[in-house]
């Protein structure tokens, strides 16, 4: 039930409200809990509310860790 999904904030529509886009589908969400969200951010949506803003640097760090692990496995596969 605590499912939450990232969607891109495409417009601030009013005080504490915005529009997100997910694969072409546009939805109105509340930004009341993430006043720091900016257009272009990916925000985590739960039950019609943005509950957090995705941190792009941390997302990139995670991918770097995984890419390194994958590369190490690939080297092992070759030997």
């Amino acid at each position, binding site marked *: 039930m605590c499912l939450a999904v990232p969607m891109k904030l495409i417009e601030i529509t009013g005080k504490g409200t915005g529009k997100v886009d997910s694969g072409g589908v546009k939805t109105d969400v509340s930004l009341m809990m993430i006043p720091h969200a900016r257009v272009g951010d990916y925000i985590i949506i739960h039950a*019609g509310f943005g509950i957090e803003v995705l941190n792009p640097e941390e997302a990139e760090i995670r991918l770097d860790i995984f890419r390194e692990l994958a590369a190490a496995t690939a080297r092992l596969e070759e030997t």
Partner: protein
Amino acid sequence: MNPADESRTAKALAQEIGEICSKTSGPLRFMEVCGTHTMAVHAAGLKSLFPDNLFLVSGPGCPVCVTEKRFIDEAMLIGQQHDACMATFGDLVRVPGSFGSLATFRSEGGTVRVVYSPMDAIDIAAAVSPRPVVFLGVGFETTIPTIAATLKTALARGTENLFVLPAFKTIHPPLRILAAKEDLHGFLLPGHVSAIIGSDSYEYLVRDFRKPGAVAGFEALDILLALRDLVRMAVDKSPAIINDYKRVVRSEGNPVARAVVDEVFEVSDASWRGLGLIPGSGLALKGPYARFDAAKSFPVEVPEAKDDPRCLCAAILTGAKTPDRCGLFGKECTPEDPVGPCMVSSEGTCAAYYKYGAA
């Protein structure tokens, strides 16, 4: 990342997990606190990657699963006796109470409206006014702020026919009970609950119980990474709280969301299926928000609920048993015709076992 690299990463992490686990002969048991993790673990077939002495057990992390039968009974009685329209998240509609579920209530002429956001309940209230609308207040820290925000809006707009039947729960009190169990060696901590309460809030697991915890995201690789950190900390006996979901979870959580909750609710006791009454584990409406409490506005006499004694949900929610140990599993109890809540919720442990098998 492309699928080939993803599977290589999974392989690397699984191998590391295997190597660390081989350093100890005893079993290593970790609890995935969150129902969404349970489902993700099964969907990705992760258990087939685990070494023989690594066990992942399910916990009380599904608000639907830990809601007592009495709650469904009370909701239905309010609906029947006060001609109330029920507004709820979809997960709750088929949870069986003592005299059927909300689906039964609807088939017998009652009104049940499924909402995506609790804010929808305000529109429903406007549409059916002056009939009362009762929102079924089930959820953990992820969901509670959305309901608090809805009530703030309702108060500001002067919506008079909206009510909430509260059964909210907070994760720390049961976690403290489970952390004291000697056969649990650490916790896979819930990602979206943590987005609100913050990874720092779990420090007591280390300080008071010497148990490690890892906050995890919901992709297969997120879970493997967190598990690797957990097995390492458990085997090295160096417990800490590691945040493996930093792209979403801040160490301090979301203070704005918590402030909304504090404005509307105060701490209360709550009853959990499987764990019983836990002091300080619930939330009650306070101050000007007390008038939204459906239990106070619409008192009904709720007969004592009887759980089917054969249903093992209580043991399953505390990680003591797995669904295949239940005699009803897959026979009398299926997702189409569930006996216990763990089979209803799409994130219930029994539903996950049913859909994907034990592996």
